[in-house]
């Protein structure tokens, strides 16, 4: 096996696992039962999507995926903090 074949199939398997993890998180986000479960599911979904894009950057050899992963990580943090504040107070900006 050449190095590029190892990277292609091995990182593809890692991506399949991350995709499955995203599906499980999405199931929890849609199923609930309560709002905090949905926020937790969304946070995990964001995290797994970020890891998936990071692995895609390695798999394709394109460095630009790093910026996308960084932005998704930052937006995920902001979204979860805002949603947690909304669950607590009923409004985001007081």
């Amino acid at each position, binding site marked *: *096996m*050449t*190095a*590029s074949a*190892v*990277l292609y199939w*091995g*990182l593809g*398997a*890692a*991506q399949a*696992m*991350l995709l*499955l*993890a*995203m599906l*499980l*998180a999405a*199931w*929890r986000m849609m199923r609930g039962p*309560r*709002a*905090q*479960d949905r*926020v*937790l*599911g969304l*946070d*995990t979904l964001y*995290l*797994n999507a*970020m*890891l998936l894009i*990071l*692995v895609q*950057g*390695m798999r394709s*050899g394109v*460095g630009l995926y*790093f910026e996308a*992963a*960084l932005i998704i*990580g*930052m937006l995920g*943090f902001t979204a*979860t*903090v805002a949603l*947690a*504040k909304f*669950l*607590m107070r009923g409004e985001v900006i007081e």
Partner: protein
Amino acid sequence: MTPSDLPLWAAWTIVAVTICGSLLALVGSAGLVVLKRFYERVHAPTLGATLGMALIVVASVVFWSMTEGRLALRDLLIGVFLTVTTPVTLILLARAAVYRDRVEGDDHIPPE
């Protein structure tokens, strides 16, 4: 050096470390589905957010350092950022959940 010129041992190492990290993220997300109560579930995704993320970031640093032929540490930025933010989000979320359960008079909240 392009990705196809990587030595075989480096490719296998990168793949093995990345698969370990993905497996941890998968186990964490499975815990989100399997565990019964919110206060148990809130701990599950941290598996992927800490060690799983760290392994994938390390694999990425090794990959880009070998591909570009210099020390490429920019992926550590993601690692540092997530290490700082993950506890903050989970503490805020758990506090919001405790507050909501107290308001509704749920007996199953953890003691203070």
